[in-house]
């Protein structure tokens, strides 16, 4: 499928992109690497510290705690959003006027600024003035996400499911629409039951799309900052302080450049590693 011509002049085409992205990526990263191996007491005076910050971070309980919280959060929302998204996509109409209506409404949460998402859920879940908070407390369950860690987790997870499941739905829906009608007709003639149709026709064809969906949701949830920060501020206490929130606290709050930089690099590396594994698996599937 590769009928490209070899053309070194193509570099001129990609030059603007390379310049802009490199400017934003390489210079800051160099700064971060720089900070991660040095110590400063202000006045732009730096002392070489080697891997001290990395060791500190990797050994710090605080880092372990926020990493653990992050992994738990990402795990939970992946386990909910992916199956739920696929299930909803399966029930969506294939054609007709309802299709646009569904797609438009489902896409809406994706276009709301993330701080508004956080603020909206804040207002929505507050015990006295929020519809959800009021309703849950009205059922006799004590619920206050500003005070109870479990309630905070519940609300944060629910908010993320509300916010991002539509992405999975839209991706899965597009994947389902690309399956030719012949497959369903042949399955009908073969006498296949709906579950068999799902297992043998739909799921295999959705593999590529699902990989992308899982990858995106993993990445974005692992980096999540604004929504939970606006909703809970990381609390109560630090029960919902995920990795990004913790990092920003250290970097911009405390201005601990060294530890922040080391943490940043470790963070970035984790994301890259997982993504690389997924990307390789995805490419392997394509070749089959």
């Amino acid at each position: 499928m590769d009928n490209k011509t070899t053309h070194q002049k193509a570099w001129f085409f990609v030059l603007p992109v390379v310049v802009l992205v490199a400017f934003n990526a390489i210079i800051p990263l160099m700064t971060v690497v720089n900070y991660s191996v040095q110590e400063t007491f202000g006045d732009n005076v730096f002392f070489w510290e080697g891997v001290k910050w990395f060791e500190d971070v990797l050994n710090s309980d605080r880092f372990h705690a926020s990493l653990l919280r992050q992994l738990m959060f990402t795990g939970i929302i992946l386990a909910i959003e992916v199956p739920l998204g696929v299930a909803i996509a399966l029930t969506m109409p294939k054609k007709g006027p309802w299709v646009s209506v569904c797609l438009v409404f489902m896409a809406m949460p994706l276009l709301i600024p993330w701080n508004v998402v956080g603020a909206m859920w804040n207002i929505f879940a507050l015990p006295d003035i929020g519809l959800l908070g009021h309703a849950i407390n009205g059922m006799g369950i004590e619920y206050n996400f500003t005070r109870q860690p479990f309630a905070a987790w519940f609300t944060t997870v629910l908010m993320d499911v509300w916010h991002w499941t539509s992405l999975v739905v839209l991706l899965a829906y597009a994947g389902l629409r690309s399956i030719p009608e012949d497959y369903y007709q042949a399955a009908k003639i073969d006498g296949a039951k709906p579950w068999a149709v799902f297992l043998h026709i739909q799921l295999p064809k959705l593999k590529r799309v699902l990989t992308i969906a899982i990858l995106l949701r993993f990445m974005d949830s692992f980096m999540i900052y604004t929504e939970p920060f606006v909703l809970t501020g990381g609390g109560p206490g630090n029960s919902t302080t995920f990795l990004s929130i913790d990092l920003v606290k250290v970097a911009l709050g405390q201005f601990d450049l060294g530890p922040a930089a080391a943490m940043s690099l470790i963070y970035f590396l984790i994301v890259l590693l997982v993504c690389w594994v997924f990307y390789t698996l995805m490419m392997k599937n394509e070749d089959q």
Partner: protein
Amino acid sequence: MSKITLKNLRHSYLSHPQRDEDWALKEMSVEWSDGGAYALLGPSGCGKTTLLNIISGLVTPTQGEVWFGDVEVSHLPADKRNIAQVFQFPVVYDTMTVFDNLAFPLRNRDVNETDIDWKVREIAAMLDLSETLMKRASGLTADGKQKISLGRGLVRSDVNAIMFDEPLTVIDPHLKWILRSKLKELHQQIGNTMIYVTHDQTEALTFADQVVVMQEGEVVQIGSPVELFERPQHTFVGHFIGSPGMNVLACELDQGQPVYGGATVETTGKVAVEDPTARLEIGIRPEFISFADDGIAVSVEKVSDAGRVNIVETRHGDDVIKLLVPDGGNVPSENAFLKFDPDHTQVYANDWMVS
């Protein structure tokens, strides 16, 4: 196994069809005898796939009835009609082995495993798939996958008829020939009714005993390949079949005989034209025209080499008339006369044969 009958069938994909064009299938009644090998031939969009899907049950007809033997099945879903269908693009279950693919329809119908085993192996042997039974279906070539699709239809012992919807479209040319012969062989071995949709006349004429020619939702002619060639009932059949197709020339009628080029044209059959205002045409195949010393005056325009024959294009007035001259035969250089074989000259009124 039983006869398939279509009574007064008419179908539209629109919910409120108004005009003639809104109907994908115009009114038709057709009988398909038990065990026959049929081809549904016609250009794209003529309705052949619609007709096929109505017979197989994937589409419910707007009007009319479908009968299998003595049972009306018009509203019976496809999986209850004891038919199998092979589609244009190979449909295989990628995650399963070839064996499991073939076994799938039987497993869905709760057949026990021992029966499944020998049946699958029997069909696999027939289709030359025995070597690949344990391989994953996704790894096969296109023709292998189509064989699997076909096999899934053959494993079921309750299959009355097998439908083919342009199944050789994605197959390489040299394999097409092999598969076509295989299908013909299978038909002789098993004897199911087979209905084969195609827009390729070679496929239709070599596979089928009877060809159903369709155009714009209508069945234009049903007949054996020879009948279609020698006596096309409709100018469309004349055009479509044969390469090059039949010459169709506007003519007039004079005392019951067609007149063309100022002279009366002889025809063996009697001409019976009911509608005096009808548009009249003569149809004659290039195979049945020859150069003569007298007859219709033409100028020779072009000679193309087509292997064993040469296709000569001549012109009479505004009309282009093509004829075939065997290789090595004499072709006049500029002006000549043509003679039409009376046995094979037909007259058409409004495209339908009247002679």
